[in-house]
């Protein structure tokens, strides 16, 4: 712990870490010094001049350097000018007088508010920030009663200036505090918004293309201390004081960001509660006070018109309404009859409790349960995954973080952000990928390998000179592995190479060590812990079975799977929305969205976290776990637990890594710094305080005292196929904004999703006679799809990058033919 110093603020003696800013130290002592530009997560800049205070320091004798003593105490010398409490650091013996004790400070702050208001439109009645606005609040508390600036020609500026398609700037309201600009620069590392002009003409602008091109853009609206930055999602949608709040967990990626869902009764929803916005909720060990734009804006699928509201079954070849009892009975009958050929296909979109019931049903009925994912390797993250005490926020010098086969920015944005910051604090960051990714900019070492060589590359990492040394000499090592260019088999062997490397070198079973999967979905890790596996040749496995598909849309994802399902014996689909798979189902079971129910998710960092209901269920939908129980009952199998917490209790009793966990434990909170989200929005922004639970880590095999042995890597399975003449090797990559069911339903994101595309090196394109933007047809293994050509110099020759879930169903590296589409 850093050295503590004692200082006095408004007559009270307090202790704070040396070097802490006066504003932050005061805050810890319960004293509020008003600020606009200062934010506890950003470097102090002293711009707004709101935090003016009087500061006195013990006087030193010039000759001796000793403190001057007067009346038995050090003599305190005050500077004639007020000083900014944000930029001054606490020192031993310092004396601070804030606005409550110093008339001078009070006047200074009042002056600053008056200056700010000279250019401010004071349009609070129509401002989205009204009610949670630092400027409004601090004006009430510290500003002058009336304005002496009476010019009719008060600045008139743009009221609706889109910085991009998601964030709108009101130039009149902006107070030039630069919090947004500094957030993008310091925290996100993407300075795509900035100031133009100077003096009073200074304005926020974005020149990126597309505008405000950052997946973290929404956070700027949380820390904007006025209503200058708003999201298109919430702009003019509701007043903050009308909103209810429910704690939730983002379901878009394995990070598991803590969120708060703000809801309101809405006429257009028939007087029902709807989610009006998604806000970050503080969890310093997971997402701090940030979330990415996907998490903030993609929630609209939960109120999509395509939501399933009633159970359906097929009658005369058509899907027709059925009662819950009839629908589940029909499914149960077919599953029972299928015996060994009963197969469950479930995705990591589901909660732990849902997955546990599904797995129990498969086990008790003699069927099989597969995880619907293109990634393998979860047995290993369950074995040597990270556990208790692991926190990217605590990593710096002495920690090594390896990221392999993953573009974290696209796949798990908040991990990207936290890994970047760890690197900036001194952690050794090693990025291994066949092409350049955004994270590389912050890497200590960035190495390239060829697609197909990933497992071998990792296996030999220790021998790779400086990088090898950086690895072997590290105190703590974390490896994040992903699925760039890899299918289920490839990721499985990459995972085992990583796990072996970690295990052999002792980087397991202690805080800040272990393996993390950059999974496709929010709860893939939970599925693995509960005992799900992926089937490498899923199409083959599906043939002729009675299949229970939960939270997945294989028909839309992959023509091969669609075909295989065509030959299935019976299909029951349980989902929140109509999908291409529900269209071919024999029974359709409407499930509740995560906004409508309770449950837990296990993040990629193996943290189990609770989410809570925010809005009432849609139609007759039910939570997944209870639908499964109902089917089970018809099959003569009793799955205990009607309450979701009871299911969780059974789960934690039967699965070792969950041992000791229960809902009460997951709801525990502790004091987090910085202090945010209380009445004092001026300080941390509109991020919510976490009062509903920080969650808890699963235990790791090594900490449980189990011996861990990692299977040998199958070298034969990893190499990518060799394309023939005139073929390219197509490799799947992951894209944040894809055409997945839970993204596509949000119109807001359509511009960012874009078209189906295939990216080529300019040379490769030239050889084939393609140009940027041209339509081509990509064919392989008897399937094909159309895509637009994008050129990218960071790709190797002869490779075609194909984003997943963007229309062309490539699960693993395959040779493809790319042909030009004749223009219509």
């Amino acid at each position: 712990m850093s050295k503590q110093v004692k200082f006095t603020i408004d007559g009270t003696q307090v202790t704070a870490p040396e070097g802490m800013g006066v504003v932050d130290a005061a805050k810890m002592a319960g004293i509020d010094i008003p600020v606009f530009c200062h934010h506890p997560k950003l470097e102090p800049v002293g711009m707004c001049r709101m935090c003016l205070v009087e500061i006195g320091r013990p006087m030193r004798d010039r000759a001796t350097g000793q403190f001057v003593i007067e009346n038995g105490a050090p003599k305190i010398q005050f500077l004639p000018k007020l000083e900014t409490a944000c930029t001054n650091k606490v020192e031993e013996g310092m004396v601070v007088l804030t606005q409550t004790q110093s008339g001078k400070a009070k006047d200074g702050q009042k002056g600053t508010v008056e200056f700010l208001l000279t250019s401010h439109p004071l349009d609070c009645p129509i401002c989205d920030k009204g009610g949670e606005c630092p400027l409004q609040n601090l004006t009430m508390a510290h500003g002058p009663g009336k304005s002496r600036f009476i010019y009719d020609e008060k600045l008139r500026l743009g009221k609706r200036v889109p910085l991009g398609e998601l964030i709108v700037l009101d130039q009149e309201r902006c107070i030039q505090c630069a919090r947004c600009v500094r957030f993008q620069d310091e925290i996100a590392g993407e300075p795509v918004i900035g100031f133009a002009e100077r003096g009073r003409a200074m304005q926020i602008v974005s020149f990126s293309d597309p505008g405000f091109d950052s997946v973290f853009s929404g956070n700027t609206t949380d820390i904007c201390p006025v209503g200058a930055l708003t999201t298109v999602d919430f702009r003019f949608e509701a007043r903050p004081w009308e909103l209810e709040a429910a704690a939730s967990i983002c379901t878009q990626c394995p990070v598991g960001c803590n969120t708060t869902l703000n809801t309101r009764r809405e006429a257009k929803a028939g007087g029902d509660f709807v989610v009006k916005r998604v806000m970050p909720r503080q969890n310093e060990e997971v997402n701090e006070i940030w979330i990415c734009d996907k998490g903030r804006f993609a929630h609209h699928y939960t109120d999509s018109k395509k939501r399933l509201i009633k159970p359906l079954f097929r009658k005369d070849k058509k899907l027709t309404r059925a009662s819950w009892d009839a629908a589940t009975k029909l499914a149960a009958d077919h599953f029972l009859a299928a015996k060994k050929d009963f197969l469950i296909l479930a995705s990591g979109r589901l909660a732990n409790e849902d997955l546990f019931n599904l797995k129990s049903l498969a086990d008790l009925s003699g069927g099989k349960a597969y995880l619907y994912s293109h990634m393998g390797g979860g047995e290993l993250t369950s074995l040597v995954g990270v556990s208790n005490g692991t926190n990217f926020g605590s990593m710096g010098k002495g920690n090594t973080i390896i990221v392999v086969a993953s573009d974290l920015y696209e796949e798990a944005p908040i991990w990207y952000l936290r890994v970047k910051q760890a690197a900036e604090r001194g952690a050794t960051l090693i990025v291994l990928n066949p092409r350049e990714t955004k994270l590389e900019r912050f890497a200590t070492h960035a190495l390239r390998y060829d697609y197909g060589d990933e497992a071998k590359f990792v296996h030999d990492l220790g021998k790779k000179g400086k990088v090898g040394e950086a690895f072997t000499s590290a105190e703590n090592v974390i490896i994040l592995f992903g699925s760039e260019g890899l299918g289920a088999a490839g990721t499985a062997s990459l995972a085992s190479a990583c796990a072996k490397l970690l295990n052999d070198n002792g980087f397991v079973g202690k805080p800040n060590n272990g393996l993390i999967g950059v999974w496709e979905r929010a709860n893939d890790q939970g599925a693995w812990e509960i005992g799900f596996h992926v089937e490498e040749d899923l199409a083959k496995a599906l043939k002729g079975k009675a299949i229970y598909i939960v939270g997945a849309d294989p028909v839309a994802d992959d023509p091969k799977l669609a075909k295989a399902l065509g030959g299935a014996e019976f299909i029951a689909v349980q989902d929140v929305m109509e999908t291409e798979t529900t269209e071919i189902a024999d029974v359709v079971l409407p499930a509740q969205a995560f906004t409508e129910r309770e449950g837990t998710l296990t993040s990629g960092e193996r943290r189990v976290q609770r989410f809570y209901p925010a809005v009432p269920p849609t139609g007759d939908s039910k939570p997944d776990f209870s639908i499964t129980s109902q089917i089970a009952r018809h099959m003569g199998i009793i799955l205990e637990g009607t309450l979701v917490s009871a299911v969780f209790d059974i789960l934690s009793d039967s699965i070792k890594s969950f041992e000791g966990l229960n809902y009460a434990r997951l709801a525990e909170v502790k004091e987090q710094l910085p202090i945010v989200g209380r009445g004092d929005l001026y300080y941390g922004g509109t991020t919510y305080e976490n009062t509903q639970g920080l969650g808890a880590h699963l235990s790791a095999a090594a900490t449980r005292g189990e011996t861990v042995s990692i299977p040998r890597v199958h070298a034969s399975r990893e190499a990518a196929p060799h394309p023939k003449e005139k073929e390219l090797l197509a490799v799947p990559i992951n894209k944040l904004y894809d055409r997945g069911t839970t993204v596509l339903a949000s119109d807001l994101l359509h511009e960012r999703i874009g078209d189906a595309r295939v990216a080529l090196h300019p040379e490769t394109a030239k050889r084939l006679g393609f140009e940027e933007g041209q339509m081509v047809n990509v064919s392989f293994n008897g399937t094909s799809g159309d895509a637009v050509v994008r050129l990218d110099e960071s790709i190797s020759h002869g490779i075609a990058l194909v984003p997943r879930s963007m229309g062309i169903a490539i699960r693993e590296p395959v040779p493809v033919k790319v042909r030009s589409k004749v223009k219509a």
Partner: protein
Amino acid sequence: MLLKKYPKEVQQILSKYPPEGKRSAVMPLLFLAQREEGYVNKAAMQDIAKILDITETDVASIVRFYTLYHDKKAGKYHMQVCTDLPCALRGAEEFLDALCDNLGIEVGETTSDRFLTLEAVTCLAACDKAPMFQTQGPDGIKYHENMNVDKTMGLISVLKKSVT
């Protein structure tokens, strides 16, 4: 484009700064780019951003902080008359008025032949030689001191000849 057209100049500019200070080159590169058309266009900003590994927004916000960079096309020459306090005490404002009359434009406007944009600027460190102005054009920035309207009109015709 910039890199292709002026490889030597770009390299020479970059060589002045340490690798960690590469971004320092943004100002000289903007001057280089501005030589082309008298203003910095979007393509040039993209170019510079790429050379220096910064964002286009970074570059644009620099362009729009400093008054010697222009992001819009104006006259071939900017004629920038100092009307700051010391020059004004020595007749600079009257000089500028007379110049406007002679050119038939207002301060801030461009002549109809798009040759000249007339501007009033703050102190140019030539207070003892007022009235004075600088011209900013294809030949860089030049000072013209102890001026009067006749001398100025003469200068304009000389400049016009030199570019045609």
